[in-house]
């Protein structure tokens, strides 16, 4: 093995690695570009052509503040329904949403006009202080809200968010079933779009960027 052939091999290896990186970069560019043409319902997001204005509802957040229709005004809101005793889907989704928020915050126009809301459908176990503890862990800007069953049902019903709490006497870990979709409400408190699971932080933040751009274009 002489020195030249070693140098040649190292060079080929570097070229091969560079080609792989370039390929990955190009694929990313294409995906980014693609997302502009993907506002028709697909596997990731359904954007409604005529966003539905929400009716009044009354919930309470993790700091015991009112969370109602007015809380949605002026901000894009990502809503996820769940419960804190949920070991798989809820922490997975909240971790994805926290990463999506970081992505959105890194690029203009930033995350000033967005909020993430975890709606607990299990008020029996999820008190305000538990919710505070829970959502703070994922992102200190996240809101944890809940209320009585009628008010949770009111908001969930308006979004078509299915859930069922199977409280069983004597059973500590009673099952709670809930949709894993993420609901997007626009700054006029209208049901604007829905993200279908499984969720991915990068896809979610890219799609949101396009939705927000289009909405800004429509408003002017």
């Amino acid at each position, binding site marked *: *093995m002489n020195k030249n*052939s*070693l140098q040649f*091999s*190292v060079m080929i*290896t570097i070229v091969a690695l560079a080609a792989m990186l370039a390929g990955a970069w190009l694929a990313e560019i294409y995906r980014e570009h693609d997302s502009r043409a993907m506002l028709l319902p697909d596997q990731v997001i359904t954007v409604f052509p005529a966003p539905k204005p929400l009716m009044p509802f009354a919930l309470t957040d993790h700091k015991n503040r009112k969370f109602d229709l007015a809380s949605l005004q002026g901000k894009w809101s990502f809503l996820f329904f769940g419960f*804190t*005793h*949920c*070991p*798989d*889907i809820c*922490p*997975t989704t909240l*971790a994805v949403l926290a990463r999506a928020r970081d992505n959105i915050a890194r690029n203009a126009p930033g995350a000033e006009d967005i909020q993430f809301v975890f709606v607990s459908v299990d008020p029996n176990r999820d008190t305000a202080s538990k919710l505070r*503890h*829970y959502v*703070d*862990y*994922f992102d200190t800007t996240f809101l944890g809200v809940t209320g009585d069953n009628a008010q949770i049902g009111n908001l969930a019903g308006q979004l078509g968010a*299915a*859930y*069922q709490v199977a409280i069983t006497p004597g059973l500590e*870990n009673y*099952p709670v*079933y*809930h*949709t*894993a*979709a993420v609901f997007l409400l626009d700054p006029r408190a209208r049901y604007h779009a829905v993200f279908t*699971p*499984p969720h991915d932080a990068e896809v979610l933040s890219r799609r949101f960027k396009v939705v927000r751009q289009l909405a800004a274009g429509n408003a002017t």
Partner: protein
Amino acid sequence: MRGPHPVFVFVLLALTLVPAASEEAGVSVRDAWIRETPPGMTMMAGYMELRNNTARPQVLVAASSSGFGSVMIHHTLVKDGMARMAHASQIELAPNASLIFAPGGFHLMLMHPKRTLRAGDPVVIKLEFRGGPVLPVAFEVRK
């Protein structure tokens, strides 16, 4: 040039993931991790990739850990538009096939951790297969 150049061989090896696997029970496990949760939560979930290295089915029948009050094999399913957890009494691994426990699918439901687990903590969970073999697996807590 005779045969592949040593540098090529090295690079190929470096690019290949070499799983750190235990081979007992004819089943190897890689990428075993537990999702860190907010402190004080009583429910956690464990994920892993199981591979059956034998030519016959292997059946996972139970899991246990001294680090938790109880461990159950669960499957998150979507029914009527709602995610729900179903208890799986056993899971069969097809011959020479892999089965992935991942968020939104199969997971080990880990109830009542004995202490607060933080990212980086190791936890051993024992997987029991039909016929008796028990495979201790080192899980890592990850954020």
